[in-house]
């Protein structure tokens, strides 16, 4: 008579790493950990007062939109990736991602409670439940999270992390470039940094599974990724126009969307879709995002603020022990 062993519970062993990327990403995520309470948001109160009423409404709507995406990613999106984890360490990383998304979602509430009145906050949340484009965006993503195909779930998750947030992230970067709400922008930059690692990691796990599939299935998934991106993009354009037409920034935001859509595809290991001319993001936005981003200047020209004349110093072998 044999003992029935249908299920063995396995404790996760961090001293036996199957995929070094799991440990690397875990270390990065945990060392990047932050809470909204660490950001001095109250320093933005005066700046908030300088925004026009419609600019304040726009900002609050953008932030409830971002809150909705973080809520979905924290409670449904990341969790939907758990059953497909390839290692137990990956499961641990995913739970970190899920928790951090909840921190992000809560951080917008910190911005609201610092800057806004209760009735304004409630109005903005009501807007988020009634805006057709925001609801459509959530509906599309949720339908894939609840779907059967693990690869498609990862595609949807990566597109959310690396593309869908950016119509919202644009605005605090725009305010920051005009020296407004700069502490709020610091908080958003922390979120943006986290999303880059989430997008990279989920995209990496996608590529591992993708590479094991048959050629036919790979073509199917690749086609699906571009189709889903375009479906989301079409809705995102409407969402963007709905929000930004009033302050005349829609075209500028669209370039930021194209730029980030390309990065989302690259996180999945696929080629960029939008050509260079559609992605020439306003340099002020890029500078707000990453101060050295637009300094990909020709080093032969000697121009650009990052150009430094080389300092001469003899090197020793000790220099290389860094």
């Amino acid at each position, binding site marked *: 008579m044999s003992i029935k062993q249908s299920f063995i519970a396995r404790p996760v062993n961090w001293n036996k790493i199957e995929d*070094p990327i799991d440990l690397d990403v875990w270390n*990065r995520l945990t060392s990047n950990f932050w809470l909204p309470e660490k950001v001095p948001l109250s320093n933005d109160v005066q700046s908030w007062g300088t925004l026009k009423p419609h600019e304040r409404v726009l900002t609050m709507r953008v932030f409830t939109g971002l809150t909705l995406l973080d809520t979905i990613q924290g409670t449904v999106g990341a969790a939907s990736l758990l059953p497909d984890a390839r290692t137990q360490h990956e499961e641990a990383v995913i739970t970190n991602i899920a928790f951090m998304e909840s921190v992000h979602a809560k951080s917008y509430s910190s911005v609201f409670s610092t800057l806004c009145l209760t009735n304004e906050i409630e109005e903005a949340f009501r807007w988020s439940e009634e805006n057709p484009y925001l609801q459509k965006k959530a509906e599309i993503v949720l339908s894939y999270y609840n779907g059967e195909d693990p690869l498609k779930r990862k595609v949807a998750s990566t597109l959310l992390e690396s593309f869908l947030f950016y119509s919202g992230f644009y605005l605090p970067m725009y305010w920051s470039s005009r020296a407004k709400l700069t502490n709020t922008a610091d908080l958003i930059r922390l979120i*943006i940094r986290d999303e880059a690692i989430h997008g990279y990691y989920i995209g990496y796990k996608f*590529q591992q599974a993708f590479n094991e599939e048959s050629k036919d299935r790979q073509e199917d998934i690749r086609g699906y990724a571009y189709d889903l991106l375009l479906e989301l993009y079409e809705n995102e354009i409407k969402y963007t126009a709905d929000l930004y037409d009033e302050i005349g920034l829609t075209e500028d935001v669209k370039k930021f969307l194209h730029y980030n859509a390309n*990065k989302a595809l*690259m996180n999945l*290991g696929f080629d960029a879709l939008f050509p260079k001319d559609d992605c020439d993001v306003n340099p002020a936005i890029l500078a707000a995002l*990453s101060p050295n981003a637009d300094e990909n200047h020709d080093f032969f020209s000697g121009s650009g603020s990052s150009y430094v004349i080389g300092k001469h110093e003899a090197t020793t072998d000790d220099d290389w022990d860094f």
Partner: protein
Amino acid sequence: MFDIVYFSSTSENTKRFVDKLGLVSRRIPLLTKDVEGFHISTPSVLVLPTYGGGEDKRAVPIQVIKFLNDPVNRSLIVGVIATGNTNFGTTYAVAGDIVSAKLQVPLLYRVEILGTPNDIFEVKERLQKLWDLQQNSHQSPAFSS
């Protein structure tokens, strides 16, 4: 043309970029213990990813540090290209700045993730410029080994 020597983790993002350049390339081993026996013998451009998104210390992959610890290897590096993500703000592609400063060779370009077709075009053009520059002037201290 220069050869490419690069590091790419198992995510292979940097490898995908290098493959698109279509140049002779060699990959620095993934396992740190294998790097010691890895040597280059031709003038090469180093392509490396940036790790972290936090402190500079950990931005350069350990395998690249080990590779550059070899005086012959580092003397053959004529330029650096770094990959990264602007989401990391001030530390975007910072591994390129660190190695460029250490080696006193130009940081030729920063690439996001695996690079767009335009990035490939720009990088090829710059490599050609650097190549021409070196062919015309062997006196340049930055490029002599």
